[in-house]
């Protein structure tokens, strides 16, 4: 029998790691991620979890220790946020390139300066191209479900890639919500034991991480890219298997009341739930609007996005990050490039807001929808507009 409990998203992720019977956790404390390593350390101290908890001296060492643990075949977990993800940046590339299926929760946080411990997606965008499978959660249940799912997909012998499970710092990491926790047998049925085929062991010596001279580096990187893109099939299969066992089905792109809508709003992460209320209000006034939210950020779900967009005329993309001097919010530019080859593509409008913990209320999303439609009707040369930020920014031209 599953049980329904009130659980903070951070604690739900820790609970998923426990039920996954992780072998090694290496983590360094950083706000707003702290509740995850604290809870796991407590579980180890109380004997609720039989794992090695390595209290490393930095995030760089956190992920480096995870590399070593994964290399000997241990199921490995870590969590970080913002500056911590930046400090481990070079290790992030190594984890995926060496094909270690580490699972890492990222409690999305803004980047300094000025210092901000609060949430936005700047840390995510800085690791966009690192070759990790990246998935976004919208609530505590998803924090549990997708952490479990991350082990299942990353460790699949057809994949062997690390997975980042993103959830918004504070807005989700510190929110207590009802979570349905499964029985251990159900988890064990979904998540087989990790058997890493290339574990470092004196009985069968192997070399990991040899260097790549120019006559082999290119082939190595292209092989990685091919494997990464192919992981999509297992990602989809993982969602189906998860749904069949636990009854909750996830999709690469989630649509909410979007069918046939002329105007679509696109969000990523926990703000999607606020945006849903704005959609409901607009719908109740008879407006033709809907919401799509990206669940899978990498590998990018091109096909699924095009299907979700369908024949919409206007697509309003909301970003929680600035791409300095770039073509607008980083999500919006991905969306534009994904739709560029489509014959009937919608007008794409880019909004930036919710930076460094700035909240987005329902009326902010209503404004975004209204103003987005207005921009399309009247035309605008601005690459993006802001929402919920004091002062009007103009003259941002391509």
């Amino acid at each position, binding site marked *: 029998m599953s049980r329904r409990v009130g659980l903070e998203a951070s604690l739900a992720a820790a609970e998923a790691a426990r039920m996954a019977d992780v*072998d090694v956790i290496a983590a360094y404390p950083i706000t707003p991620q702290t509740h995850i390593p604290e809870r796991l350390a407590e579980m180890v101290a109380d004997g609720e979890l039989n794992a090695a908890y390595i209290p490393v001296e930095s995030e760089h060492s956190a992920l480096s220790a995870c590399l070593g643990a994964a290399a000997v075949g241990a199921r490995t977990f870590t969590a970080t946020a913002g500056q911590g993800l930046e400090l481990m940046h070079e290790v992030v590339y190594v984890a995926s390139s060496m094909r270690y299926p580490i699972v890492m929760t990222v409690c999305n946080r803004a980047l300094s300066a000025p210092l901000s411990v609060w949430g936005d997606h700047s840390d995510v965008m800085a690791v966009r191209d690192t070759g990790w499978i990246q998935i976004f959660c919208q609530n505590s249940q998803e924090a549990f479900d997708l952490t479990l799912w991350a082990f299942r997909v990353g460790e699949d012998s057809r994949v062997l890639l690390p997975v980042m499970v993103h959830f918004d710092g504070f807005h989700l990491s510190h929110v207590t919500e009802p979570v349905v926790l499964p029985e251990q047998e159900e988890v064990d049925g979904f998540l087989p034991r990790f058997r890493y085929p290339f574990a470092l062991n004196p009985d069968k010596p192997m070399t990991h991480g040899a260097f790549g001279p120019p006559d082999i580096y290119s082939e190595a990187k292209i092989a990685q890219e091919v494997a990464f893109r192919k992981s999509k099939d297992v990602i989809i299969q993982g969602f189906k298997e998860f749904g069949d066992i636990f009854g909750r089905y996830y999709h690469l792109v989630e649509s909410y009341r979007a069918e046939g809508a002329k105007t679509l709003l696109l969000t990523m992460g926990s703000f999607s739930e606020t945006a849903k209320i704005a959609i409901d209000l607009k719908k109740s006034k008879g407006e033709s609007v809907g919401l799509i939210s990206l669940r899978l950020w990498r590998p990018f779900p091109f096909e699924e996005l095009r299907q979700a967009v369908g024949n919409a005329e206007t697509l309003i993309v909301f970003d929680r990050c600035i791409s300095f001097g770039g073509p607008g919010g980083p999500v919006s530019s991905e969306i534009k490039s994904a739709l560029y080859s489509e014959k009937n593509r919608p007008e794409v409008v880019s909004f930036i807001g919710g930076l460094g913990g700035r909240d987005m209320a329902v009326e902010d999303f209503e404004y975004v929808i209204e103003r987005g439609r207005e921009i399309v009707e009247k035309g605008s040369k601005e690459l993006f507009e802001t929402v919920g930020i004091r002062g009007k920014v103009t003259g941002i031209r391509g």
Partner: protein
Amino acid sequence: MKEKSIKFGKNVVTTEEFVAEGHSFCVGCGEALALRLACKALGKDVVVANATGCIEICTSPLPVTSWRVPWIHTLFENTAATVSGIEAGLKILMKKGKMPEKDIKCVAVAGDGGTSDIGIQALSGAFERNHDFLYLCFDNEAYMNTGIQRSSATPYGASTTTAPAGKLSIGQTTWKKNMPEIAVAHNIPYVATACPGYPFDLMNKVKKGGKVRGPAYVHIFSPCPTGWRHASDLAVEIGRLAVETGVFPLYEVENGRYRLNIDRSKLRPVEEYLKTQGRFRHLLDEEIAKIQEHVNDEYAKLKAKVACFAA
């Protein structure tokens, strides 16, 4: 090489090689010799984590490898952290019955830059957390793999490409960072210095470090013909000179107790060591005198520690 000075007994040293021939070390490399001996001392039941540097580059160009033991390279500064994960991983997998019990030694291998500069934070952390691992620092006193740039382990007066001797400079203007003493300050069970010019001493220390439960650190003085500007047949001799002049004393610290392994009643003048190498050839008498004084002081300090905390 003076053959008669080498002790050899059947079955004393294994004829098995763990780092295969065909590597790309420079001719006469002291580090390659030290690595070969260290690996013989450790045997096959090891997992080696290697920092970026000469050893890594000379033994692992894809798609081939010199390593006949399990080996991993990830990055430059994180080797002690990587080995922490390896050690914790093996231990918990055995504890949970997910792999058979076996005495596997986790070994970290790094150069002086990877140890005393960029890797010192990770190393300090791994020492403090009391992981069961052996850390081997192969000290050739500069960033040799990238082309003889100075490190904090470069000795005073040496000319390197980023601290070159010139009209206004003697080259390195700072004293060599005392990495073994930094290791001792972490209160780890075993710290030793070694040099391939004393092969049996080196192998014994590596073996001992490998048997310790907890962190062990062996700092291996590794003459570098390319970077030190000396003839390629002199690595062993120069290593011995470094010991005999007191420039690099051979000692061990077991649970805080000091033992001087080679204790000459009279040290040879430091000039005899300096004159063998092109990196010091610009030094004038007054600088040599300054180095001699520093060596005397450091040696006296070490002797005092030995007297105070004898093993």
